């Protein structure tokens, strides 16, 4: 797991609900057997005017000038501001890999789809849930302030605006601990090998048809 402690970055406002993982990284790019290299195809269908394919060089494709990521004001953005049910749909972790490969470190939304939320932590992408009102306020401020950046502190569980306003969010303790320290999830679980073996022996005795 990638470590995450604090981050300050430019906000990219994606003002639509139900942004699904098919939109974040379209299916044709899931054929890769690697974890890296998805960034250039993040939001591919919205970002380019020509159809994309792993066999096509992205440099040869026309960019959609209306799309956020192609606008000069949002170059270098690292904090994605979204609406409800962000990351819904397919379980593809490639969606998280595409966001982090592009450079995003934080996604703020009023709600996330469960699997996307879970997947985010594995690559050091911090999903932050704020209330609808708070998210609306951030969208409103972003519209008014050029180069709008937010400061995120995981230890303190806060999001701070350029004007000094502080929003609090909540994070499960165990998850926070793993993220702050960038711990290897599997390594942590394997520390409990004896307990797993003990459970497994009991389980096998109770339900032998499963083994």
């Amino acid at each position, binding site marked *: 797991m990638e470590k995450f402690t604090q981050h300050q970055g430019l906000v990219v406002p994606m003002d639509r609900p*139900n942004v699904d993982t*098919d939109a974040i990284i379209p*299916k044709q790019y899931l*054929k890769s057997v690697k974890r890296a290299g998805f960034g250039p195809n993040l939001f591919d269908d919205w970002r380019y005017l020509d159809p994309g394919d792993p066999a096509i060089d992205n440099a040869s494709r026309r960019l959609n000038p209306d799309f956020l990521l192609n606008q000069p004001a949002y170059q270098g953005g690292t904090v994605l501001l979204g609406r409800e049910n962000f990351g819904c*749909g397919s*379980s593809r*972790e490639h969606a998280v890999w595409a966001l982090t490969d592009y450079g995003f470190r934080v996604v703020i939304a009023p709600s996330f789809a469960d699997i996307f939320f879970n*997947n985010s932590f594995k690559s050091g992408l911090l999903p932050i849930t704020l209330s609808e009102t708070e998210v609306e306020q951030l969208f409103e401020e972003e519209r008014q302030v050029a180069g709008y950046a937010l400061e995120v502190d995981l230890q303190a569980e806060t999001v701070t605006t350029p004007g000094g306003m502080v929003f609090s969010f909540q994070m499960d303790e165990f998850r926070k601990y793993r993220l702050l320290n960038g711990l290897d999830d599997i390594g942590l679980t394997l520390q409990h090998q004896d307990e797993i073996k003990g459970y497994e022996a009991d389980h096998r005795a109770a339900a032998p048809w499963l083994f």
Partner: protein
Amino acid sequence: MAGKTLYDKLWDAHIVRTEEDGSALLYIDRQLLHEVTSPQAFEGLRLAGRTPWRVGANLAVPDHNVPTTQREEGITDPVARIQVETLDRNADEFGITEFKMGDIRQGIVHVIGPEQGATLPGMTIVCGDSHTSTHGALGALAFGIGTSEVEHVLAPQCLVQKKSKSMLVRIKGAVGTGVTGKDIVLAVIGKIGTAGGTGYAIEFAGEAIENLSVEGRMTVCNMAIEGGARAGMVAVDQKTIDYVKNGTQGRAFAPTEVHWQEAVAAWQDLHSDADAVFDAVVELEGAEIAPQVTWGTSPEMVVAIDATVPDPAAAADEVKRSGMEKALAYMGLEAGTPITAIPVDKVFVGSCTNSRIEDLRAAAAVARGRTRAENVSQVLIVPGSGLIKEQAEREGLDKIFIEAGFEWRDPGCSMCLAMNADRLEPGERCASTSNRNFESRQGLNSRTHLVSPAMAVAAAVSGHFADVRSLEGGA
């Protein structure tokens, strides 16, 4: 103390240890693997010098990328071929059972699990695919995971999970003829919304669910995720037990005679206690559910076949309104248009939602003696597994489809997500039995309307959406 929900029982029976913040280390009985979300997991395992904890708990099958026609030529897309070959190599290297492309048992991962008895009541089941919720239809706790978690399950056979809240979705009374599991679950999603089940595990219950076959229940649980819930489930009853026992093809992974009675005894408890308390309860009247058709780019954008395309002006709030406007523009539809007046270009019957033998029988019942409408350029019928294909051919269903001008294909995910060659062209409109109507899901700028198999064929032979209840064979 209140009784336990089915979800409580499944959860409690699999806890290895509990952390201070309440998250649990959960033991996983079965992991299903496919080619798209597993290569990076195997690579991670290899890099860390780890090996699978319990090889026999895993079952692998290629499905997303496989061609559904001209298989003798192999996979012509070189990138897709590498991915399928990578799965073959990983399964061989680690000794994991795999149904490779030429194997009659190959099929969609969520179809072959129950078909083989690899999905059993009382199990915890995961797969790197969101539609893993399908398996909950047999009284199992099944949910989709990401690739890092696939690797995690391969290594110590466990996952760190936070327990979800529980939701009971009760369908009161029976549904009318011509109304299927697909229509029930679409109606539920229309009611709770695509995020309505987020943070919940849903148990589907009530007379209409009890009346469904186990396959019908799979369709319902399959789409729990489209309502935001990672897991959907149905209590075990005699139908579940008969399903496991009486597989027409033989369920190789199901309990043998030695443990059968013992297993059945344990499964009897897999239901919510009468005094169990749910965090949320949603009720629908079965009699009020008509065949459903989605009109937009999210499964919650759904109406009955006799309705019209909704008007964004009537939306509850600004975010909803603009979402509806975007969807209508994308779908090329106008508010107020009767659903039955919308013509379709192509039809797809298949996917982990609706590609089982009963789905094919329902499709064939409507197709019998009819032919593809002139304006419909292609109708794909894609069975969920090689065994289902074989069964359908034994019953002569393939002939009905071919005579109707439909294409009878080999098993795979196909046009549900268009990772292989089966896809829509930009702007094409499809009546599809799959589970997602997202933008470009079935091909760049494609337009998807989700329906049941019978409704898909009704559209195929009518050239536009039609109420299957008014067609002979459809009700």
